[in-house]
Each structure stands twice: as structure tokens, then as C-alpha cells.
């Protein structure tokens, strides 16, 4: 069954649960799609895991009880409701209940557009495209000893129901990726690239810039050593590197479920400057990038949140529980659409979506001219945040040397950025005039609970500790 077909059963379940508790909700999701992957050794074309099921949630006034089922049928909803009520009967009613706002009355269905429905493309055509992508990488790349081409279409159908709203959405996106393995006989290097887009088969392309970047930059990594002069340097972050910086710096740092746990120093800095006045930062689940949706996994309609405005930390992002508790404490917290689950059977947390630095006015050439000695950082790979201590770690595959306002062509690999988040942000002295979307991202809460995100930004000039 489709998740939205369970809405009548969910409405009944919520009515029964709310005879006992102040707030109840239902969330259901099923996934569909295919991944085609071609390498020298194997060809794989398989459906993605359906991960279909639902969760019923009951808020007692002081805690959530949730039960998940992998069966999308009304009988399973009735059984799960009975089980949840049985567990609720064993709990005392709290004296001082926190109320969760169910939001406005809504009954809507949404769907992302696909010009060419990728679910209808035959397996053979998907394999043929992945094969062509692989060949496109290998052609004329003598140092590329192996390449893998991947094309995947990912579809999710989601519904959310509480006492106020009945919402359904269909999300569609396509992912194109490639991995190159390079060798000069002595050294080996690997580099991957790709993109994700909302929509369908119309977005596949053999002409995307990432393909040329892989072919150009992969061989440059062969034999590249670590930085010869680790320490603080003038840097230029590429747009996708800036994106990872945004995500790790004040994406995680403003997730307000961390505020409840006293794990975010940002809680003390709302309304205060944390960055150069050149810095603006936004989380926007509705901007059309690959992590976009119409409503979050708690039924809140997607709207953008300005996190940093001209260097001042102005807003956090939250889930329903975090917003309820913080408002109970007297903070005037605006509800944002950031309650997200890894899957139907995972807990919702406050999570980012499409997080990016806004564009400025400088060009890359202008920035480059002002750096007498420094590095241009590209090909971000992974990052980690510390919202309590405001430490940060960003890692990338390539740092290219800048001398006398020019790129020298010498590259070092890998490169890691560490330091204090506000110190890094306050050192931003130039911001580029074009925002780049890095669309392949996934984000963990700590080291688990993976959800789809994107990040992005313009090129930025700043000072950072590199190694």
C-alpha cells in the first residue's frame, strides 16, 4: 500500500491516542528507485531498498513513546495503536505537561516534478548510461586505471498526520556519480564527483563539469604530499568547500535539540556577532536543491531560515519537541521545518537541509590577487563539528599553492582545516559572487542517523589552520 492510503487509519489512531495523551502523530514512508553501477569488473542494476513502514508517536506531556511497523496496512496501524495504548497505560500522567503545537489546519498533497519519469526508464537504458559515463571518464585519461559510473533515481512517498494536518508528498531525485582511480605506476589516487537534482531522467548528462574536474584533478593528486608548512595560512575555499564549512560551522551549531542538552555554545550567542559582517548563512528546505521537501517529517511546511545575517547569529533550526521546550523556557523560538528521520523507524531530530553561505561581491580572480602566500582548497571530503567547544575539522583532497597572487600548480593532499568556528568565520575577508551547490551530501547526527543534505556557498577568502 502507498503511505497516503493509510491516512484514514492514521486519523482514527490519532483520535484514539489523543484520548490518552495531549499530542499524537503518524509518519509513513516508502522508497523506490534503481541504482545502476558499472565498473570494469561488475555491472549492477538493482532497486534501492524500499524501507517502507510507519511510526505512531504519542507525546505524554513529558516524553515520546513511538512504535514503528514495517507493514503499510490498516490492520497494522490498529495493532500498533493498541500496543501504544497498552504501553501508555503503564505510564503516569504528568502533572505539568509540556504542550506540543500541532500547527495550522492543513490537508495537502505535493509532488516534485519529473519531466521524464525515471521509474519508467528500462534497466537496460540505465545500465547503458552508467556504462557511457564510465567510458566518458576513461576516454583520453591515460592515468585513470579504473572508473565506476553510477546513475540512480530515488523516489520517496511520505505522509504525515496529526490532529491538525494531513499531508502527503512525493519526492523525486536523480543522482549521477563517478569514481576514478588514477595511477602513475608508483602512486595511486582516488577521486569521486557527481551531482544530485530534484526531478527525473531529464537531468542525466555526460557533459557535467564534475567529469572534467575528475579527469583534470585526479592525476594531479598522484604523489602529492602533505603540506610542507602546516599552520595558519591565508586560504581560499572553493564554493563546495565553503559549503562544507557552512554545514559544519553553524549548521550543527544551531540545531536547537542540542540547545536542550546544553550542547551548543550558539545558544548563548543568538543575536550576537559570530562572523565577519560579510557572512550570511541560510538553511532552506524549499530552495529546489537536492535535499528539498515540501514538509518535514513532523508535518511543518518548508520555509527558509536565515541563520547568520551580516555576521550576526539570528536563528536556529528545530524540531517540534525542541521548539516546544525552548518556548516553554521563555525563548521566543520560531518553528522551523527541520524535524527529520533517517528512516520511518528512526527518531526525529533537528537536522539541516540545504545549507549555504549567501553570495557576496568578489570574484575569484580578485581574491587570488590579494594572497601573497596561501592555499586554494578544493574537493571537500568530510567534516566534523563540535557545537559545544566550537572546534571544527574539515578535510579535502586538494590544496593548491598560491604565491604572489597566482596559483602555482603545486598541489598537496589531503588537507585538513582545524580551528575555532568563530575565529574562522570572523577571518572571512572576501566572499565570492556565485553560489555553488554541493549536492551529493549526507549528514550524520554525531556519527549516525544519516539524512540527505546539500550544502553550498561562494568562494571565500579567510585564514585557517591547515595541515
Amino acid at each position: 500500500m502507498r503511505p497516503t492510503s493509510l491516512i484514514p487509519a492514521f486519523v482514527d489512531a490519532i483520535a484514539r491516542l489523543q484520548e490518552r495523551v495531549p499530542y499524537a502523530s503518524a509518519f509513513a514512508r516508502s522508497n523506490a528507485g534503481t541504482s545502476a553501477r558499472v565498473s570494469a569488473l561488475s555491472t549492477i542494476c538493482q532497486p534501492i531498498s524500499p524501507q517502507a513502514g510507519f511510526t505512531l508517536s504519542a507525546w505524554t506531556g513529558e516524553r515520546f513513546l513511538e512504535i514503528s511497523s514495517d507493514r503499510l496496512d490498516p490492520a497494522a496501524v490498529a495493532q500498533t495503536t493498541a500496543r501504544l495504548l497498552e504501553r501508555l497505560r503503564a505510564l503516569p500522567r504528568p502533572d505539568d505537561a509540556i504542550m506540543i503545537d500541532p500547527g495550522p489546519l492543513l490537508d495537502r498533497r505535493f509532488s516534485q516534478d519529473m519531466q521524464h519519469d525515471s521509474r519508467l526508464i528500462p534497466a537496460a537504458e540505465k545500465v547503458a548510461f552508467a556504462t557511457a559515463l564510465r567510458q566518458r571518464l576513461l576516454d583520453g585519461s591515460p592515468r585513470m586505471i579504473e572508473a565506476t559510473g553510477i546513475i540512480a533515481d530515488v523516489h520517496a512517498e511520505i505522509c504525515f498526520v496529526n490532529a491538525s494536518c494531513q499531508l502527503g508528498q512525493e519526492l523525486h531525485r536523480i543522482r549521477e556519480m563517478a569514481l576514478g582511480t588514477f595511477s602513475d605506476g608508483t602512486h595511486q589516487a582516488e577521486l569521486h564527483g557527481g551531482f544530485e537534482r530534484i526531478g527525473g531522467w531529464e537531468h542525466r548528462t555526460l557533459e557535467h563539469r564534475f567529469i572534467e574536474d575528475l579527469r583534470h584533478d585526479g592525476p594531479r593528486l598522484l604523489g602529492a604530499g602533505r603540506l610542507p608548512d602546516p599552520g595558519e595560512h591565508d586560504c581560499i575555499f572553493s564554493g563546495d568547500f565553503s559549503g562544507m564549512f557552512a554545514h559544519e560551522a553553524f549548521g550543527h551549531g544551531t540545531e536547537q535539540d542540542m540547545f536542550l542538552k546544553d550542547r551548543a555554545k550558539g545558544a548563548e550567542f543568538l543575536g550576537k556577532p559570530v562572523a565577519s559582517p560579510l557572512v550570511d548563512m541560510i538553511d532552506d528546505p524549499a530552495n529546489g536543491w537536492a535535499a528539498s521537501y515540501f514538509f518535514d517529517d513532523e508535518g511543518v511546511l518548508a520555509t527558509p531560515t536565515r541563520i547568520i545575517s551580516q555576521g550576526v547569529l539570528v536563528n536556529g533550526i528545530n524540531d517540534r519537541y525542541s521548539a516546544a521546550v525552548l518556548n516553554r523556557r521563555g525563548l521566543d523560538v520560531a518553528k522551523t521545518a527541520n524535524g527529520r528521520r533517517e528512516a520511518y523507524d528512526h527518531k526525529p531530530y533537528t537536522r539541516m537541509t540545504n545549507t549555504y553561505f549567501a553570495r557576496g561581491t568578489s570574484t575569484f580572480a580578485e581574491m587570488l590577487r590579494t594572497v601573497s602566500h596561501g592555499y586554494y582548497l578544493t574537493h571537500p571530503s568530510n567534516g566534523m563539528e563540535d557545537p559545544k567547544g566550537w572546534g571544527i575539522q574539515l578535510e579535502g583532497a586538494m590544496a593548491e599553492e598560491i604565491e604572489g597572487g597566482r596559483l602555482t600548480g603545486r598541489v598537496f593532499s589531503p588537507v585538513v582545516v582545524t580551528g575555532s568556528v568563530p575565529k574562522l568565520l570572523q577571518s572571512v575577508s572576501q566572499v565570492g559572487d556565485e553560489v555553488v551547490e554541493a549536492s551529493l551530501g549526507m549528514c550524520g547526527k554525531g556519527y549516525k542517523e544519516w539524512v540527505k543534505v546539500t550544502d553550498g556557498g561562494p568562494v571565500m577568502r579567510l585564514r585557517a589552520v591547515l595541515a
Partner: protein
Amino acid sequence: MSGPAPVAAGLDLAAIAAALRQQPWIAQWQVTQRDSARQERYLTFLAVESERESASTTWTIWTATAAVDGKQGEASFTIQAGEPLAALQEALGRAHAAAQAAWNPAFTLPAAGEDGVAQATTLAPEALADASISADAPGAVACLAQEFATAVAACPWVRPSTLEIFLTTHDRVLINHRGLRLRERRTHAFAEFVLLHRAPGRDEVEFYHQTEAASLQALALGARVARAARCVRDGAQAGTTVPGVQPVVISDEYLAKLLDSFRAHADAGRHASRTNVFTLGEPVIQRRSGPALTVVSDPSVTSLAAYQFDEQGYAPARTALIEADRLVGVVGPARWMRVLGRLPRGMAGTLVVPAGESAPAQLLAGALEVVAFSDLAARYDTGAFSGEIRLAYRHHADGRVEAVTGGSVSGILTQALADCRFSRDTTTCAGYHGPRAVRFAALTVAC
């Protein structure tokens, strides 16, 4: 709750096997049934914020056509409990189309009794599954929460920000068209917690810890909380890391993650696709001093990487991967082992490294001992690794120990191992069993 829920009405293994036998295009098939049941509890400052329970059943079905010119068409898919037989039939139709598009080197699934194939339970059941989790997961969750509270109470300087507990029982049944039928139960205990502490006149700091094991005993939550409490107290008064090239000691899960890169270097798929960095027989380390490195894959050694049978039904087998600093073995899926002309010997299991000879004091003298990184892993292609230091101890020559934070440690694994020393005490974490700590003679520390 007593283990995973029964298989839902509708599909079951017998019905799936019958449907597969009726497909004329299917020459080989395998079905893996996975039942799992999970209990979770989330605490904030010791108050319960959320409790969750879930159960699921899936069947992962792999099919192949008859081989033509040494190649076979392959397709796999997953179907969930509650789906009707018609859904399986539709999925098989799509699998047929996918198999016609995905041709791979032919191989044959194993049969019971063949060399290297699991016959029944190889390991003692308690090696993989903790009966206290599978029999009463809610009770086990409550016990862990109490263990946490007791441990925190013994450290009155900390505030217990969060605790997340997940306890899961997984049952796996594997059948194939050659009559193989194997069953395994395993349990998984996971805990993540954060302790806070503020030193007078300083900002409050946190210490984050995540741990997982097959049993509650191996999880050792109370002991981990006690250690974390000491770390957060020290971290609250930590000074600044001193940069430079210096001896660095890395231990437990970080050491396990670094050495885990040898699992990739010995991966049969890498060697079959000729994207391996090291060739068999080649040194992986240019030794400068200290004893040579030995790394073994042994799925019969208890850890989260132990198993009764692998993805295709092969039994646990010990395979030497690194001996005397040289790559000597490969391990991985049967199909890639056959491409390499080797007998399948199961997927990689627990990574076992022999204990070293150094006592803790010998390792730590004059070194920077890093106890918490933001993240640390070595790149497969170059062996390069870097990690931001969340908390470290600087062991001065005069015996003083100073907590520090900030900056990063970086190096190249194969160079760093060239003059390292391992501890004589051992640990088991994630899929690793071996020395608890290693001392690298010279790593770069940058601030």
C-alpha cells in the same frame, strides 16, 4: 518482547523459494531473511525524552540466469513483510529485465558440504548473541539506564547531558537453490552519551562517547562513563596543544579505525579489479624499527565483525592478511576470490593484531596521548590520516601530565607504522581485536 516478531502472514521463505523455482529464467537463487527487533531509550539529564520500539522482516533475493560464454545475468532486490505474493511476482518481473542488462563473470553459489561452506553453528551462540538482550530487551534497556545513572552519580562533578541506548536482536536465515539452509542470531548493543563539566572561571565542556558491542558485558557502560568523567574534568582545564613533530599515542576505536584500512588493502574485490594499492607479497611498511606487523582476519574471534556464516554461506576462516610487514592474503566475496583463482574462505571478519610488548608507561613517556579526536580515518589510496584533537594528554619527561586540546594530528599510516610500538594490553572494539594502543614515533601536530 522475546526476540524478533514472527514473520508476517503472506510471504514466507517457503513461498518465496517456491516462486523462484517456478521462474524458468532463474538458474541460481539465494534468499536472506532478516528479522530484527529494536528497543531504544533517549535520556536528557537523566529524564526520559523518548522511548521507541520497532520490528521488521525483509527478504533479500539474489537471482542469476544460466551462464553464457562465462557470464551470467544477475539481479537482486529486497521485499518486506506484509507484501502479497503479487508484489513478489512483480519484483521478479523487474529482476528479469535487470538481469538481462547486468552481465557479470559467472560463478556458482555454494552447496552444503562443499569445502569452506558453513554446515551449522560454528561459533558458540553466546559469541554473537547476548541472551539478556534477545530475551528481554526492555529490561536490558532499563538495566543500562540504571548503570549509567549509577556511574554518573559516582562522579558528582559531571552533568549527564544525554544518553541514547539501542538494543537490537537480528535473526538471519540464508537459503539457496542448492539446498543450503543456515541460521544465525546476533545481538547489538549501542550507547552514546555526553557528559558536561565546567571548571571554575572556564567555559563548560563536553565529552562525547559512543560504544557498541554484541553484549551488555562487552559494552561496559559503567566503566566507560567513569573514564569519560575523568576526561571531561581534565578537558575543562585543558591547555593548548603544542605543535611540532612528536611521538603520539593513539588507542582503542581510533587505532581500530586506522588499522581497518588493511581490510581494504586485502579486499578481494580491489585485487580483482586491479585497483589495489599493494600487490600480494609486497611490503606495506618500510620498517625502520620495532617488531614487524601481523594482521589476520578471523571471523571466529568475538567482535562485531564475527559471524557464523558469510553473505553466501561460507564458514568463518582465519586468513593472514599481513605477515612480516608484507601483504600475504586477500579475503572477500566468493565471486572475487574465484576471479583471483582462490578458494572462497568467507568475508573478512574480526581484524586481529597480536599484542605488542610495551607497557603503558613505556608507550606514554614523552608522548602526546590523544584520547578523543573529532574523527580519524586513513585514506585508502595514500594512507594519509588527519584528526582534530578534542582531548589529549601531554606526558612530560619529568612525569607531569597535562591535558591539552585543539589542533590536529596527521601522518601517513604506512610511514607511521614503520617505527611504532604496540601495547601489551589488548582491546576489542567494533571489528577489531588487538593492542589497545600504539605509539607512533613522529607525527605532525599542527595548531
